């Protein structure tokens, strides 16, 4: 039976929308606490070497300059590397800002000027004279393939790729084969909001820290460990984030610098980075890949080989799952996978939306297109012939898998059956038309998250958890889930997040927030329901006297009997009768934690299929992506509106990766040269045309009680490959080095 307070699955406007469009939503650099000082970071112009001299005197002489921090005067804080490791730190030795004279990468922070105004700090930083002893650097990945090594355990979530069967045999058995190299360059996250931390000094080493982050607890524990502060001394707040895409998964160096300066000067300090400095930390690593495929006469894959080499820094081994997906997505007995890292003089790479899979799916899905042509099959038909009904990599059944529906509904919507296979065979007037497809697979995961639900005497429900909303819609969907769980109108529910004084929640990443915090919200609300029923039973209402929790429901603002909905008590009245100001409950994460220890029983994944149309000018070789259909199977969709936005953003990013986005390194300088928004190209509105998002129905009672798989990343997969495949279909030109800029098509 439906209730007026059912919200799950309904398109719902963002509850934080009004705050954002009216400007009342505040970001880390917007907290104007009293007596604030401003730090401005000086970045290294060289890539490798040593600082030999820093002349701080002329800068310190400027009235209003409070301090110039360099490795010479920043005290040693925690000694062990362990203290600098955050939740997602890769293996190795984390970078310590202003630690010593050594320069490890271009744009490394080498000093910070702190002054009374931002403008003064910026000016002072520009005249700070620093001398360096430069030594030769190495930033060119392709020159270091031979030194590439297999990473050890890697960072959290890294699964060393596992081969199976005998690829050599499968390769020989094939009647058709393809083999090729693929590459893409570094990309920087470049969220609109620059990284910033405002640290409010409250006296006696008590700090409130407004940080740009995807996880307040991650920032807090970093500060605790590095500076030896207790949890009470370092409260971290992040209510709004102007985009993250993974860049906020690790505490960035402005957090260290702002806290350090605040502690040293016993003042409130803000440090915000510039757009150029947004190129001075993690990025999606440049990745070189090789794929070889073979098929039998019926088009079934007899062998898959996928090998990748990615760059990492000299000080950490950043790992991601690039090739593993190739052993899962398609059915094949003989799979050989390899993944290696090569060290160059850059900062450690960092997870970027669909880390690993975004890279791997470019190679695999272009290769699948090449293989389809080599085998004389339609690319969709080819994928269907190799559909995986059982996860051979994990040797587990899927908890659910509606990829077939993605193929069918996506193709139908796109009109794929009208495609003619021959490259260059489709036209729109003078323009070449190309249709290409691709797809992908992403983990459906869940982490322990604590949620508190509290109903007050006015009948207002406040649900809280220290998770983040990086623009994905967390505020909204948690409000929907809580409202439906407690049977309250959405206006009577507030979801609070982004504060370390709230119950602990994991980093916002891995597409797991909806599942983790969402299910915990249901659990907390269930507990609150039990408490409310208990309280109701103390009231003078015979109907509920012996009622069990299964026999009641919370709907339309009331507690009522399932068997007789006229037997009802308004929730507010229950709290009022209790004599308390509120009734609260919190979920327990014990079961989730135990669950995570057990070997999984199912392979749990979200999937998608992408269909793309490009139009190409046959002489000028300009490419326009005129149409995209992205069909996604991601379990239950809590809010089709915010979920659609996630997929739209993914498609735009996929087009970006395919056609224009790249951090261009000049290896002579070891420096990314297009470090600004004018030259680091991402699509503008005029580049984006029709995008259709389809969520195919996929019920899954095994993945988690709500059946959520997460939607933040899967939509990106296969998009770049599909665009590239469409360009091939239009022009007959197979470009394997992304982005496909005009010069590669001439």
């Amino acid at each position, binding site marked *: 039976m439906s209730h007026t307070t059912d919200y799950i699955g309904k398109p719902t406007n963002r509850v934080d929308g009004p705050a954002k469009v009216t400007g009342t939503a505040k970001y880390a650099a917007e907290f104007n606490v009293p007596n604030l000082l401003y730090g401005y970071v000086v970045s290294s112009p060289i890539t490798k070497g040593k600082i030999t001299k820093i002349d701080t005197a002329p800068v310190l002489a400027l009235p209003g300059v409070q301090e110039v921090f360099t490795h010479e005067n920043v005290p040693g804080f925690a000694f062990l590397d362990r203290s600098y490791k955050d939740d997602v730190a890769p293996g190795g030795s984390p970078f310590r800002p202003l630690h010593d004279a050594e320069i490890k990468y271009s744009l490394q922070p080498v000093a910070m000027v702190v002054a009374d105004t931002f403008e003064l700090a910026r*000016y002072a930083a520009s005249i700070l004279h620093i001398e360096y002893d430069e030594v030769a650097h190495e930033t060119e990945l392709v020159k270091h393939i031979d030194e590439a090594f297999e990473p050890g355990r890697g960072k959290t979530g890294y699964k060393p790729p596992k081969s199976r069967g005998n690829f050599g045999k499968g390769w020989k058995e094939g009647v058709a084969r393809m083999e090729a190299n693929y590459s893409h360059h570094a990309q920087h996250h470049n969220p609109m909001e620059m990284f910033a931390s405002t640290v409010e000094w409250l006296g006696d080493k008590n700090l409130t820290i407004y940080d740009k982050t995807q996880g307040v607890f991650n920032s807090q524990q970093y500060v605790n460990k590095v500076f030896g502060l207790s949890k009470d001394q370092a409260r971290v707040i992040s209510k709004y984030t102007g985009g993250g895409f993974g860049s906020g998964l690790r505490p960035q160096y402005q957090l260290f610098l702002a806290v350090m300066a605040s502690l040293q000067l016993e003042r409130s300090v803000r440090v915000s980075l510039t757009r150029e400095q947004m190129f001075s930390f993690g990025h999606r690593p440049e990745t070189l890949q090789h794929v070889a495929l073979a098929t039998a006469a019926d088009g079934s894959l007899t062998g898959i080989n996928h090998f990748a080499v990615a760059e990492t820094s000299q000080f950490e081994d950043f790992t991601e799952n690039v090739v593993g997906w190739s052993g899962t997505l398609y059915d094949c007995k003989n799979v050989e996978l390899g993944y290696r890292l090569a060290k160059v003089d850059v900062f450690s790479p960092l997870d970027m939306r669909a880390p690993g899979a975004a890279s791997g799916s470019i190679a695999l899905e272009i290769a699948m297109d090449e293989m389809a042509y080599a085998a004389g099959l339609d690319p969709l038909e080819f994928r269907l012939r190799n559909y995986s009904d059982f996860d051979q990599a994990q040797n587990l059944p899927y908890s659910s898998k509606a990829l077939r529906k993605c193929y069918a509904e996506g193709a139908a919507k796109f009109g794929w059956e009208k495609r003619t296979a021959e490259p260059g065979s489709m036209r729109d007037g003078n323009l070449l038309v190309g249709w290409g497809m691709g797809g992908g697979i992403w983990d459906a995961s869940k982490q322990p998250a604590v949620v508190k639900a509290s109903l007050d005497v006015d009948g207002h429900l406040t649900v809280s958890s220290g998770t983040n909303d990086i623009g994905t819609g967390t505020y909204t969907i948690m409000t929907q889930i809580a409202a439906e769980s407690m049977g309250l109108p959405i206006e009577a529910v507030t979801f609070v997040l982004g504060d370390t004084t709230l119950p602990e929640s994991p980093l916002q990443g891995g597409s797991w927030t909806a599942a983790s915090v969402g299910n915990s919200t249901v659990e907390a609300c269930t507990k609150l329901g039990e408490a409310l029923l208990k309280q109701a039973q103390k009231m003078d209402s015979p109907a509920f006297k012996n009622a069990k929790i299964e026999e009641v429901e919370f709907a339309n603002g009331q507690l009522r009997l399932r068997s007789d909905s006229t037997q009802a008590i308004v929730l507010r009245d229950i709290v009022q009768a209790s004599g308390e100001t509120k009734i609260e409950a919190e979920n327990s994460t014990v079961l989730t934690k135990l669950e995570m220890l057990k070997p999984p029983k199912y392979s749990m994944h979200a999937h998608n299929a992408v269909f793309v149309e490009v139009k190409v000018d046959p002489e000028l070789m300009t490419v326009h992506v005129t149409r995209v259909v992205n069909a996604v199977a991601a379990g239950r969709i809590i809010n089709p509106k915010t979920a659609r936005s996630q997929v739209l953003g993914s498609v735009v990013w996929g087009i970006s990766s395919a056609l224009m986005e790249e951090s261009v390194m000049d290896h002579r300088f070891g420096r990314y*040269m297009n470090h600004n928004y*004018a030259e680091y*190209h991402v*699509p503008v509105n005029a580049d984006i045309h029709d995008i259709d998002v389809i969520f195919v129905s996929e019920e899954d009672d095994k993945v988690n009680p709500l059946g959520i798989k997460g939607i933040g990343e899967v939509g990106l997969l296969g998009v770049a490959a599909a665009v590239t495949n469409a360009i091939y279909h239009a022009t007959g030109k197979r470009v394997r080095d992304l982005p496909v800029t005009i010069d590669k098509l001439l």
Partner: protein
Amino acid sequence: MNSFTFTQATAVAGAVQDKAAHDDAAYIGGGTNLIDLMKENVARPTHLIGLKKLGLDTIENTPDGGLRLGALATNADTAWHPEVEKRYPLLNQAILAGASPQLRNMATDGGNLMQRTRCYYFYDLATPCNKREPGSGCSAIGGYTRVHAILGTSEHCIATHPSDMCVALAALEATVRVSGPNGERTIAFEDFHRLPGDQPERDNTLEPGELITGLDLPEKGFAKNFSYLKLRDRTSYAFALVSVAAALELDGNTITEARLALGGVAHKPWRDKAAEAMLIGQPATADTFRRAAAKVLEGAKGQGTNNFKIELAKRAIVRALKQAAEMNQVLDTNAFQNSNP
């Protein structure tokens, strides 16, 4: 950015005097380029002279049948001025192919001429640059040269002038009006910007202290047969890899007059009068256009990562001339590109 003083000039003479009275003063129009350069510490003026109150923002017909653009008219007001739309649609197209609506609302016509190169190395103090610091070397040579020149380069600098508007002004043979310590003078557009030679720090032929007061367009606007084609790494809000302003006069299918200017390929809007001459008296066919294109690119020299621009420029010239001759929007890949309001 350093600290600076600011005066709002109300008369040309006063502005010129103010400039002469300071060592490191700069005029400021819309500020869309200068402020960026100051934030990057590429420009460090200690005094700014605001020009927006000079009253030079009008656009008026001239007695000889031309049109005078005030130096402080914004790029947006210029593009959308009824006389420009009607008589100089090439200029309208070129302006609208540049920057974004917000920038065009701020940017002034004088500032557009004076904007500096977008060479990555020029903007980055960590890399040597002869234009920024004469004698320090040119980092672009042997480096990432996507926005760099293929024509008229020197061993000292391979930068391009980034403007779209100026490419149209070159084709239209505008005249630049300036006022300076030594009085007023006019400069033919082709003589305004210069090639880098051994003085890459000089973008143009303005003398120290000179102020641009306006631009005169001659009567002939080529409103019947014109095209501005801009090729770039995304559909809008990116500088040209190659752009072409083409303007023709036709008698039937025979070309009687031709103008051809290129952007994104040289230190100045690139005009090739020999190539234009080759078009005169010829039928407006692909063959004719290809010959002219080959002529323009005859002396072109790639810098490595921009080698492709030689071929791209040839194709762009052929297409732009074809579009100008046929005035056929279907051929126009800018159909998407000019979707900016």
